[in-house]
C-alpha cells in the first residue's frame, strides 16, 4: 500500500494505549486508514482536533514522536480473478511469495444488500454428512457456525464440508489460526487439487490480535467480487469467530467503553451481524454462503459470543463426542439449520421432514431412558429399544465420518425405525408409512 506524495506528516502523539493512539490532526475522515510508525491503523474516534487510531499491529515500541500519515481512504482490497489460489495477510498483502494482485480497488466492509433485492435461498448444499444433510440441511446463501469446544475437530469437518460442497470459490478467513492449522488447510486444499479456487486471508496466532478485525471484511469483499461480478457460488469459511470477538473487546476496552455481558462490547450483536449478513443469494445467480466456527468454553452456549451468534446465524452445528460410539457426532438437539425448510421434502424426497423429526424424537426418548438408567431404575421394553435405536442412529447417521447421499440417509432412517419400532409407535403420516416402511417377508 503506497502512500501519496505531499501528504502531511504528524509527529506528535498525545496518548498511547495498548491498542490505540491519539493525536491532533485536521481533515481526517472517520474509518480512514493511517500509518503510525510504519504500522497500519484506522480512525475509530474523532473529537474536535483529537483523532484516535486503532493500531492493528499493536502499539509496542511506538514513541510519542512517531511519524503518522493518513491515507485519505478506508481500508481497501484490490479484486480480480487473480485472487484465486493466493494467500494473504489481514491487510490483503500476499504471504505466499507471489506478486501483489492488480485489480479494481474496493473499500472493505461495504454497504449491505437491499433486503428486497435478495433472492430466497433454495439450492441445497450436499455434504454427505447425515448429521448435516438429513437433520440440518444447508442451503446456498446461508450463514451457519460450528459450535465446538476447542479440542474438537471443527477445522477438519469444515474443510471436508468445503471440499464436498459444489461451489466455484472457497474463501478462507483465518483469525488466530495456529500455524499448524494454517498449514493443515493449505495441505488439504493442495492435496485435493483445488488450490486454484481457494482464496485465503490468514491471521495466525503469531500476528497481532487486533489485525484479525480486518479478516472477515477482506474475505467478504473478495467473496462479493466473485459472487456479484462473476455470478459465482462462493463459500466463505471463517474460523475462529470467538477470537475475532475477543479482539473487538480488546479495542473497546482500550477505548474505555462500558462492557456489557461477558466483558463484550455492547455493539457485539451489530458487529457480528454486519459480517454474517453478507451471506446472500443474489438475484443474478451468485451466492455467498458463510460457514464459521465459534469455539465454546465447556459447551456453554449462553456466553455472549455464541449467544449473539446464534441469534444472527441461520442455525448452528453443534459438535459433541458421543461416548456410546466413541465418535464425534453432530448433536441433533442443539444443532439447527433454519433454512432447511426451504429444501427438505421439496428438493429432497417427500418423507425427509418426517423421517428427520421422528428420528430426533426417538433419540430424545432414548435420552430419557438413559437418565432413568443412570438413576438406577428398571427400563421398559420400549426404553431398551430406544437405546438400541439411538446407538445405531448415532453410528450410522450422526457421526461425522458418514458419507452417503440423502436418499440413502432416508432409507437408513426407515430401516432403523422398522428394526426397533412398530409403525404406530413412531406417529408418522399414514401415507408415508404405507409407502416407505420396509416390508418384512
Amino acid at each position: 500500500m503506497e502512500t501519496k506524495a505531499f501528504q502531511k506528516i504528524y509527529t506528535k502523539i498525545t496518548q498511547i494505549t495498548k491498542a490505540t493512539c491519539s493525536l491532533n490532526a485536521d481533515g481526517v475522515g472517520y474509518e480512514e486508514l493511517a500509518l503510525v510508525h510504519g504500522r497500519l491503523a484506522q480512525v475509530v474516534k474523532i473529537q474536535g482536533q483529537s483523532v484516535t487510531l486503532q493500531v492493528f499491529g499493536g502499539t509496542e515500541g511506538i514513541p510519542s514522536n512517531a511519524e503518522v500519515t493518513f491515507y485519505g481512504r478506508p481500508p481497501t482490497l484490490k479484486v480480480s480473478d487473480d485472487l484465486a489460489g493466493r494467500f494473504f495477510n489481514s491487510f490483503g498483502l500476499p504471504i505466499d511469495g507471489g506478486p501483489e494482485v492488480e485489480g479494481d480497488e474496493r473499500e472493505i466492509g461495504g454497504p449491505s444488500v437491499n433486503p428486497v433485492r435478495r433472492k430466497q435461498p433454495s439450492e441445497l448444499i450436499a455434504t454427505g454428512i447425515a448429521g448435516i444433510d438429513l437433520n440440518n440441511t444447508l442451503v446456498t446463501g446461508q450463514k451457519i457456525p460450528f459450535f465446538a469446544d476447542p479440542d474438537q475437530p471443527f477445522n477438519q469437518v469444515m474443510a471436508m464440508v468445503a471440499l464436498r460442497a459444489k461451489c466455484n470459490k472457497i474463501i478462507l478467513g483465518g483469525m488466530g489460526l495456529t500455524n499448524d492449522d494454517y498449514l493443515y488447510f493449505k495441505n488439504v486444499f493442495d492435496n485435493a487439487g483445488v488450490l486454484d479456487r481457494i482464496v485465503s486471508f490468514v491471521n495466525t496466532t503469531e500476528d497481532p490480535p487486533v489485525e484479525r478485525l480486518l479478516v472477515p471484511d477482506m474475505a467478504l469483499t473478495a467473496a462479493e467480487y466473485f459472487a456479484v461480478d462473476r455470478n459465482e457460488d462462493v463459500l466463505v469459511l471463517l474460523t475462529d469467530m470467538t477470537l475475532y470477538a475477543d479482539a473487538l473487546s480488546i479495542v473497546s476496552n482500550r477505548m474505555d467503553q462500558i462492557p456489557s455481558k461477558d466483558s463484550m462490547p455492547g455493539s457485539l450483536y451489530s458487529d457480528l451481524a454486519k459480517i454474517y449478513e453478507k451471506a446472500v443469494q443474489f438475484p443474478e445467480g451468485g451466492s455467498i454462503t458463510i460457514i464459521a466456527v465459534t469455539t465454546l468454553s465447556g459447551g456453554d452456549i449462553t456466553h455472549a459470543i455464541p449467544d449473539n451468534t446464534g441469534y444472527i446465524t441461520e442455525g448452528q452445528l453443534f459438535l459433541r463426542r458421543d461416548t456410546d460410539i466413541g465418535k464425534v457426532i453432530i448433536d441433533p438437539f442443539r444443532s439447527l439449520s433454519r433454512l432447511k425448510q426451504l429444501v427438505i421434502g421439496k428438493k429432497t424426497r417427500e418423507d425427509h421432514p418426517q423421517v428427520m423429526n421422528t428420528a430426533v424424537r426417538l433419540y430424545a426418548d432414548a435420552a430419557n431412558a438413559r437418565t432413568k438408567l443412570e438413576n438406577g431404575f428398571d427400563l421398559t421394553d420400549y426404553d431398551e429399544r430406544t437405546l438400541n435405536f439411538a446407538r445405531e442412529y448415532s453410528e450410522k447417521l450422526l457421526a461425522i465420518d458418514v458419507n452417503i447421499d440423502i436418499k440413502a440417509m432416508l432409507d437408513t432412517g426407515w430401516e432403523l425405525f422398522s428394526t426397533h419400532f412398530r409403525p404406530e409407535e413412531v406417529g408418522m403420516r399414514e401415507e408415508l408409512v404405507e409407502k416407505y416402511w420396509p416390508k418384512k417377508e
Partner: protein
Amino acid sequence: MKENKLTKGKVAGVIANLVMVDVDGPVSQNEICYIMLEDVKLMAEVIKVLEKRAYIQVFESTRGLRVGTDVEFTKGMLEVTLGPGILSRNYDGLQHDLNKMEGVFLQRGDYTSALDDDRMWSFTPVAKKGDPVAAGDWLGEVDENGQPHKIMVPFKFTGKYKVKSVIDKGEYTINETIAVLLDSEEKEVPVTMVQKWPVKVPIKAYKNKPRPFKLLETGVRTMDTLNPIVEGGTGFIPGPFGSGKTVLQHAISKQAEADIVVVAACGERANEVVEIFAEFPEIDDPRTGRKLMERTTIIANTSNMPVAAREASVYTAMTLAEYYRAMGLRVLLLADSTSRWAQALREMSNRMEELPGPDAFPMDLPAIISNFYSRAGYVYLNNGESGSITFIGTVSPAGGNLKEPVTESTKKAARCFYALSQQRADSKRYPAIDPIDSYSKYIEYPELQEYLKKNVGENWVENVLKIKNILIRGKEASEQINILGDDGVPIGYHVDFWKSEVIDFVILQQDAFDEVDRSSPIQRQKYMLEKVLNVYDTGFEFGSFEEVNPYFKRIINEFKQMNFSDYESDRFYKHEKELFNIIDEKKIA
C-alpha cells in the same frame, strides 16, 4: 420561534454513528437534521443537547465523515407519511420504500418516497358540507387493496372544524385537495389524502380505550385454546435462539383474524424478511380472496442495517398501525425482535457515556418499553366505530435467561406471555410454548369469558382451565415417576402422565409446515378439546404400567392423524372411529 431561519451546525466529532455537532441556533430533542456530505445527505436525529453542542445519532454509516462538515436542522421530528398506498409495501425503518431504491446494495442517503404521487385513487366522500369534524374524523374513503381506506381530518389539526366542501366521487391523486375545512375562525384549510405524523407521539384520535374483550383467532391451538390473545391485546414471545420465535410469528401473521398486518423486522435476519417477501404475495387470504401481501406492510430494518434506524423502525410500524386503527380496522402488529431495539438503545447510551443500568442497558428501558406497549389497544372512535391494534413482540433473551432486563421489562408491560422452552424445542415439541409457564391475563377478564361462552361454547372456559390442571398434574406425575422409578409409583401416575401427553401431542403440538395442521379454526379446536377431554374422563384398566405407554401412543397416533386430515372429512372420521375402538379396548365399563 421568532424567525423562520433553520439552525445550522458543523460536525465536531465522530464515534461510530454518534456525531457531535456545534450549532448556531436552537435545536430540540429528537429534531431531525441532515449531514451534508459531498455527494449525499445523511439523516440523523438529535438525542442530547449540551449548550451549543448537539449529539446526533446518524441513521447511516458515518464512514469518511470529517470534522467541519455542514449540518442542517429541519425543526421537525422523525415523521411518517400517511395516506393510501402503504399496504403491500416494503419500507426501511424510516419509511423509505425499499423497492424504489436502485441497485442490489443499499446506498447511504438513498431516501425514496413512501407513497406514489401520481397513482389515481377512486375516492368516495363520507362527510357532507356543514358536518362538524375534528382530527381523525372520516371525510371520505378510497379502496386500498379491498380495504376501506378512510381519508381523515389530519391528526395534527387541533380543535373543532366544519366541513366547507368535499370533492365529488372520482379519481384523484394523493396530493389533490379532497376537502376544505373551516377552522373556528372561519379560515379555510385544505385537506389532501396525505398527512404526516411524528412517530414517537401516539395518535390519540379516538374516544376511549375500553378493556379488550374479543378473542383474536390465530389458528395456533396452544395460543387460542390455552392462552388466548384478544383484539387490542398485547403479548410477547421470549425464547432462546432456535426455539421457534420467528416461525411462530410468521404463522400468526399468516393466520390471525386481522384486517391489516404490520410486520416490523427489527434487527433480525434478512433471509427471514425475504421469506415474507417471497411467500406473502403467493398465499391466499381466505377472508378476502386476495393475496396476503395486499393487507400487509413490512418495515424491514435487518440486523446489518444501521442501528439507529432500528430503533426508529418499531415506532414507524406502530404509527402506521395507529393510522389504520383510526379507520376502524383490526390491525395486528408484530415486532421481531424488541430485544434488538433495546440493544440499539444500549449502543447509543454507551457511546454517550451515560451511566448504565442492568446489563449496560439504559436506565429508562422499562419506561420506554411500557410506553410503547401502551400504544396498542382496542378503541372506540369518535363516530362510535371500533378499531384495534394487537401487538405481539418477540424478545431474544441473552443466553436464554428470562431474568434479563428486556424480558423483565416486557413482562411488566405485556398481558400475554408465551414462554418458549428450550427443552420443548430440543425434543421438537413445536410450537415450543411452555403450557405451564405461559399465561394470558385476558382469560381472567369477565368480558372475554362472556365473549367465549357466547361465541365458542358454554363450557369452553371451564374446559380450558381443566386442561391446564391436567397438564400440571401430568407434570407432577412425571416428576414422581422420574424420582421413584416406573414401578415405584402406582399405575395411576402413569395414566395421569399419559393423559397429559395426549393433550401435549394433540392440542399443544402443531406442525407449522403441514398444509392442514398449520392452522386450526376455533370450532375445530373446540371439537378436538372435547374429544381429548373425553379420553381424560374415561377410566382405563391396565394390568401393568408397561401397557400404559404403548396404549396411549396408539391413541395419540389416531388423534394426530385426525389433526393431519381435513376437518370433517372421511379420513378425519375414519381415524375418529378407530380412536373410539382403541378407547373401548381398555375402558372400564
